[in-house]
């Protein structure tokens, strides 16, 4: 446990000591700012506006832009940079386990990702103060939103960590996870909008649709199936990462 925490601390240190860390925070703030403008406009024009979390996380694309753009940048460093610098060799010749390394790199990325979202909480509190309409910002919906950010984020981050373990080039790692992320998003959009009544494949795809999951979360519906789905995908990609590292170590 001590070793694990030491590794997580190093991951966070590396993120905050690097320019890319601040680029991620800047992207998040900028896009969240655009999202806020969108919300303010809708609140002004609509007579009966939808609750804020739905505008921001379900209907708009701001959440998805932030997710798809920042997760590859956060995770690209994890393995690729260490390999390129050679510190990977120094790391793997110490008696640390592969799982410890994989989980620490993932946890570090997840913590940084959640921290980069934290200014948003401030934005929502400000909106609540200004609008004076508590029904627009239901606490349950907020819990759903936070769960959604963490769950869907985990999936995307685990894909990014996996991509980073495959290469020593950060650019290739980022591009790979960006492509997978965009692919997942567009497929999800396509299937959550399709008419899915009766069609088995369509219903299955609807269950797998990440945009559908987020719509539920934003309404404050925490669906167990979605939770299990994201935890499984996260574990699956971390498992693949561990296999890649083990294979490189012994083959």
């Amino acid at each position: 446990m001590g070793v694990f925490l030491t590794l997580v601390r190093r991951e966070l240190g590396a993120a905050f000591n690097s320019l890319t860390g601040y680029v991620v925070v800047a992207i998040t703030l900028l896009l969240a700012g655009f999202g806020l403008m969108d919300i303010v406009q809708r609140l002004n024009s609509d007579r009966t506006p939808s609750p804020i979390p739905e505008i921001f996380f379900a209907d708009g694309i701001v959440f998805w832009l932030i997710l798809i753009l920042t997760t590859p940048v956060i995770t690209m460093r994890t393995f690729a940079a260490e390999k390129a610098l050679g510190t990977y060799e120094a790391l793997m010749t110490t008696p640390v386990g592969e799982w410890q390394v994989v989980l620490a790199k993932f946890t570090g990325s997840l913590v940084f990702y959640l921290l980069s979202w934290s200014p948003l909480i401030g934005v929502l509190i400000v909106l609540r103060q200004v609008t004076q309409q508590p029904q627009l910002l239901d606490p349950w919906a907020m819990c759903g939103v936070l769960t959604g950010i963490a769950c869907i984020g985990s999936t995307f981050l685990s894909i990014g960590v996996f991509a980073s373990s495959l290469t020593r080039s950060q650019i290739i790692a980022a591009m790979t996870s960006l492509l997978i992320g965009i692919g997942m998003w567009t497929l999800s959009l396509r299937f959550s909008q399709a008419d899915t009544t009766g069609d088995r494949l369509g219903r299955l795809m609807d269950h797998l649709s990440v945009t559908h999951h987020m719509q539920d979360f934003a309404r404050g519906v925490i669906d167990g199936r979605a939770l299990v789905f994201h935890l499984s995908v996260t574990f699956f990609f971390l498992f693949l990462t561990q296999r890649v590292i083990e294979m490189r170590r012994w083959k």
Partner: protein
Amino acid sequence: MIEVQNLTKRYPGRTAVDGISFTVGRGEVVGFLGPNGAGKSTTMRILSSFMPATSGTVRIAGYDVFHQPDEVRRRIGYMPENNPLHIDMRVRDYLKFRARLKGLGIGRSRQRVDRVIEQCGLKDVEKRIIGQLSKGYRQRVGLADALVHDPDLIILDEPTIGLDPHQLRSVRALIKELGRQHTVLLSTHILTEVEMTCSRVLILNQGRILAADRVEDLESRFSQDGRVVAEIDATPEAIREAFRDLPEVAALEIQAAAGAFQRVAFTPKSGQDLRPLVFEQVRQHDWSLRELTRPRLSLEDIFIQLTQKKKGGDL
């Protein structure tokens, strides 16, 4: 401490290490010498259990690097090629981080970090960011990292590459100091470095061991058949006359040297030391003598001889 048997490493299309065997005893300082691409780094990576061998066995302190890698890793301080460090960290934080990774507890790691900072002369820079240090200091940070868990065996891959003469001297002195308490295996392609720091040398080329010997023995083994060189103040004819009938001298070459001196190279018939004989002749003829040596090949010459033989295919 190290037992290597028939170690082979093949990459697709290339054999980096080709069936080498050697042992290193406890407390030895052994140098791996060879040109770039000879297989030094590959061998060291296998020894430190960073990557597996294609075939062959390696045991470190009795533990197999393939089957008990964590036991091996605990006992090795390894400094990889080019000394990779997290350049965004401060010296003390970095060493503490490494000590924790190597399984030291919080109290013990603080104690060991204090010790290695002192040992490697890092006291003045312990709060500075590694990326802002000179190469000499960074090299010392790398050495301190290798030492921090007090390992039995220290493996250093080209520890002095790219240092200026001052830094070279201090890093070499540090390595020599380490050799008093630890077993050290270091690689280099600088021959004088081996002569200065190592007790034994393994010469590697194209994945094979060309020679393995103590540094002094290697020199005498490859010395030029006991040739003796003298500078004598006499005419060439007189010198030839004086040594003609001596059965011990097989051949002599004379070259004019500065002043009235002649530089004479004697080759003995059967490897014996001709120096007393030469001196005796000079004394009898009442000549003056300003040099009398048995030139020895430097490691550099030995290395060139060995690698050329290798190219000729007769070794």
